[in-house]
């Protein structure tokens, strides 16, 4: 039965819905989101799909090329490495480790960054300038240098690599938060809330944070791509995840000794990193454009 109440049907999309409908109009961004979701699903379900363990060494099947090659075997679809470990299995586990450790790193950095940013944005004078000085140094120091210092103090390992990259990511979030908080604090709706007697923390949680969520999502997405690149780079340099762990960067470093006779062991993990970073970047870029378009309407 057709609905006759035309006027009541009018529907105002929430900000998130509006951004989503802007985002959906970009086909490339939707494809990027599809690839990203594919990687996330593979990272979660992959270990259930494969019959092998990532560390099992098949000594009868060493350096087998991928299945489409003449010498390939259908048992190991993407081939095996120099120790006879199944490539596809290791890619599943590697995606899981690299992707999820990057997401966790970014989430932790985001929490600390927002807290510091709010403190810097709402305070003035010495405290604010101290935070800014320390953050400037942190931001100017190359990530690899921070990582080297942390490795020297605490030893190598995936957790320490995440710590180093998290430290290097914090200033991004602090800058976004601080600038936004400064800009909003001078607006009238904040003044109204202040006149109602809201404390600083209430101001932030109820008034500023809801307006900032979208910016944080955009920044967070772009930070994930940086984190993936850095975690795999540290793994490659043998400073992050250690040799036994099937992290994608570590897998490339392991394959270096057989690079000439088995190039697929370098190509496939690298391709996985590249596609992950590319899809995250496309999604982040699409979100940023969608946000910008929505704000300009």
């Amino acid at each position: 039965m057709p609905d006759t109440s035309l006027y009541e049907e009018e529907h105002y999309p929430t900000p998130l819905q509006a951004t989503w409908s802007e985002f959906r109009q970009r086909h490339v961004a939707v494809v990027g989101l599809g690839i990203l979701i594919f990687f996330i699903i593979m990272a979660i379900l992959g270990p259930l799909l494969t019959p092998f363990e990532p560390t099992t060494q098949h000594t009868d099947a060493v350096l087998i090329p991928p299945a489409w090659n003449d010498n390939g075997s259908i048992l190991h679809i993407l081939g095996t490495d120099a120790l006879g470990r199944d490539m596809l299995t290791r890619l599943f586990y590697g995606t899981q480790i690299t992707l999820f450790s990057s997401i966790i790193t970014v989430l932790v950095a985001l929490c600390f960054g927002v807290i510091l940013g709010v403190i810097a944005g709402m305070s003035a004078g010495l405290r604010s300038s101290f935070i800014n000085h320390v953050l400037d140094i942190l931001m100017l120091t190359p990530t690899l240098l921070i990582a080297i210092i942390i490795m020297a103090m605490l030893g190598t390992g995936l957790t320490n690599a995440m710590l180093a990259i998290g430290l290097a990511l914090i200033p991004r979030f602090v800058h976004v938060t601080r600038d936004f908080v400064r800009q909003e604090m001078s607006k009238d709706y904040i003044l109204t809330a202040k006149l109602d007697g809201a404390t600083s923390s209430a101001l932030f949680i109820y008034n500023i944070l809801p307006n900032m969520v979208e910016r944080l999502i955009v920044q967070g997405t772009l930070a994930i791509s940086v984190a993936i690149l850095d975690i795999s780079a540290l793994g490659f340099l043998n400073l992050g995840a250690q040799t036994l762990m099937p992290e994608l960067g570590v897998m490339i470093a392991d394959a270096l000794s057989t690079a000439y006779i088995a190039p697929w062991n370098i190509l496939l993990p690298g391709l996985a990193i590249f596609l992950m970073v590319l899809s995250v970047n496309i999604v982040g870029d699409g979100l940023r454009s969608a946000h910008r378009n929505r704000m300009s309407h």
Partner: protein
Amino acid sequence: MINTLFRFLNLTFITLCILVVLSFALAYFFPGDTWLNLFGAEFIQDQPTLMLVAEQTNVLMAFWYYIQALLEGEWGVSFATGNALYPEIMRLLPATLELSLYAITIALVLGIPLGFIAGMQYHKKIDNIFMSSSMVMYSFPVFWLALLLILIVSLQAQWLPMSGRLSLLFDIPHRTGFILLDIWLSDVSYKQAALYDALQHLILPTLSVSFIAFAVFLRTTRRSVADVLQTEYIKCAQTRGLPSSTIFLRHVLRNALLPVLPLLALQISTLMTNVMIVETIFSWPGIGDWLIQAIYERDFPAIRAGMLLVAMVVVVMTLSLECLSQMIDPTRDRFAYARH
């Protein structure tokens, strides 16, 4: 202007002081004996009295000794090689600077003009092609890119050498540390051949570093050109009937270039990380390769000294670029994030 200059000198000084304090503190945080970490074993064997003095003094006095030693060029002795660190670092630094300089030059020379083309064609075909390819370019992990180049260009095609700075056949006396300059200044008979060989060694590392920087510069320039094109003063100039070449040269070019300089400053630290990774892969004898070797060997004095110097170089370069952009455009917020 003098005010700005003074403020930035002050900022640089404070930042360098904080770095020195941090490097001193690192010796306490690293595992092992603090004074061994600061100066290395041989140095302390040579001067046992200093060791005795050090053990009796408090932290502040120790810091005072440390600063004095730093200023005198006594940066300590490496655990692994037993060499004095300061001359060793100074020998390695030019190689890193050389690589970064060439990479950043190529990225700038190609990235900014192409960014202008893309920005002028905003949301048209050329722009879309440039934007999508630059997105693909900056998603490349730098170490994978370097390995791919080695696999394809060096191993399969055998066009270019895959490691080092210069073929071992050539013997070039060390003068400035910049290899091309050294060859130019030297008076050997095989100058031409050595220059050609050095250039061949340079191509792959420079390409891998500049690949990513190029994409970032292109995107920033394009964004800022597109922003400028949407402003009222451009529309006004168009209504006045100015030819598009005049509009471009007089209004777009200079205004769009302003935000690019501070972005360059922000990119230095990313560039440094990429240079260090690429150095390890191509066995480029620079400070990045050396530092990563030092961490494998747990060479704490080397890590401390190398970290201090690299951080100092990056800080001084970034802050001077910041200062320059502030002087050119006084209205700009300091450290405001540039978009790309």
